[in-house]
């Protein structure tokens, strides 16, 4: 009993520690002044200003696109690579792992500047800023996606399922994508949440590569920091809301299958 109460207190304290900055940011965004103990001038004016700002909406759309597209590209490429590794060449795994770990060692600034200097004069579409940003993020999230998907495949023993499907008349490619991949959907969802949140919060890479050509919410926020504290707080709260919404969707997708299984039993 005592143990349960103490663990609850610890959880509540951790939750408070995590939520408190957000609550304060939100409070700051709905008052015009906060120079004394209590804030003054309750208003939603800053929300109205930001949400009606076309630049903000465009930057939100840009952020969502550059968060999701690299994940889709990278996951597709890694799944195809893993198909070859799992089915035909398991001995290649160690080399692929090594290759996929390289981005860990490269700092964002160095990566962004290197790509910019290498591709800025390249022919289209490689010199297109959007393409450059997306492909750079593909490199950044590659280690997380590879490791996450490989672990998921190891957990379900993909080879065993492929062999079973083969014995029932499926070819290896069909067996991998129609039998194995649906069984690692929860792993894919976790990888998606990890990589999308990472890109969602990035400022360095998109600022260097995208610059004035391609604005995301992080860059928008950076500009607002010099204009108004309340406005930047609004941007932070809205971004948090969007991230929370995206996480909730992915979480519900992950739990949907599990829930269905429980209900049928």
């Amino acid at each position, binding site marked *: 009993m005592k143990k349960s109460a103490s663990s609850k207190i610890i959880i509540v304290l951790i939750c408070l520690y995590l939520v408190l900055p957000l609550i304060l940011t939100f409070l700051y965004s709905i008052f015009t002044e906060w120079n004394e103990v209590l804030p003054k001038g309750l208003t939603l004016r800053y929300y109205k200003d930001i949400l009606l700002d076309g630049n903000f909406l465009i930057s939100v759309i840009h952020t969502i696109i550059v968060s999701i597209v690299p994940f889709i590209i990278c996951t597709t490429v890694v799944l195809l690579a893993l198909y070859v590794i799992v089915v035909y060449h398991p001995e290649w795994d160690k080399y692929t792992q090594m290759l996929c770990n390289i981005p860990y060692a490269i700092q964002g600034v160095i990566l962004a500047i290197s790509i910019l200097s290498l591709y800025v004069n390249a022919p289209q579409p490689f010199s297109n800023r959007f393409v450059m940003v997306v492909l750079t993020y593909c490199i950044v999230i590659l280690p997380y996606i590879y490791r996450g998907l490989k672990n998921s495949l190891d957990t379900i*023993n993909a080879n065993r399922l492929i062999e079973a499907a*083969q*014995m*029932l*008349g499926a*070819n290896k490619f069909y067996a991998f994508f129609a039998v194995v991949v649906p*069984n690692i959907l929860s792993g894919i969802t976790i990888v998606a949440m990890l990589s999308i949140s990472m890109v969602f919060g990035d400022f360095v890479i998109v600022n260097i590569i995208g610059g004035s050509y391609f604005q995301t919410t992080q860059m928008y926020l950076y500009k607002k920091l010099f204009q108004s504290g309340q406005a930047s707080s609004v941007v932070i709260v809205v971004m948090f809301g969007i991230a929370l919404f995206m996480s909730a969707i992915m979480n519900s997708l992950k739990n949907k299958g599990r829930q269905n299984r429980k209900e049928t039993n």
Partner: protein
Amino acid sequence: MAYISFENINKYYGENHVLIDVNLEIEQGQLVTLLGPSGCGKSTLLRCLSGLESITGGKITIDGVDVTNTDPKERKVGMVFQQYSLFPNMTVTENIAFGLKMKKMSKSDIEIKVLEAIEMVDLLGKEKAYPANLSGGQQQRVALARAIVTRPKVLLLDEPLSAIDAKLRKALQLSIKQIQRELGITSIFVTHDQDEAMIMSDVIHLFNNGVIEQSGSPSNVYTNPKTKFAAEFIGHYNIISSEQFHRITGTANSVFENVAIRPEAMEISLTPLEEKENFYQFHAVVVNHLSHGNVLRYNVEVNKVQLQVDVLFRSFYLYENGQHVYISVENRNCLAI
């Protein structure tokens, strides 16, 4: 002509020669067991027949068709794996229907055949359950239904009962045998359990180090082991050297190397039995005894040679350790190997 034939099958894993010139013929409708210890090559041979493994040399035919280099799906072979290998995201019905969908059968035909298969393996009421919510025995029955629903030419069972508890295993052994008889599917069963092999099989092929040591009916293999390995593996035989045999029986030396005597072929008594022709009888001392459920196994010593003697546990009387007893055994139960 045999229904399934393996001709000079060789298989290497790198430098490791796991199947060495295996020649094997299986008749249609038989339930054949590949029996042997772990790593002897029995599962590899099964996987070579399924097409999941390629062979290094030789030829495999099923129903007169050379399938040596064909894909698994072309071979019309069903397989039940040791770890069930059910698809976790599919229900019992979906798992069983998978093979039929691959055959592009109509939805109504699939429904009928799946229901038949579910009835056959006694899983009615579990149609919508997921594998994670089934017991090991139920999962294995789904795996069996999934393998037979497509009516394959050959059913392969790769140690399907090894992960199941003893009581359920016995029930499933009978269930598999009954279904196999009912459908008449030629089946190959891989196991390392000699009792299981004896119960299930029409024919046993005993494997050791990539070669078939002995083939025959269960009773034939059990009562007439041809090699020391066969005697040790299949019947817990007492294997004694020719010299030891002559020391305890008092007979003259012969040319054979070893003598194998089944523990249950010997009789133990407190007083000498009446002298009979074609029987050996000798004096022994009980060293210890172990209970194996319905069987008592006595370790006795005869002229510094240790023997095991099995007795049915039908009375409360036990021979004490150190007690002097008499052992008698029929001549024909002392096999020269």
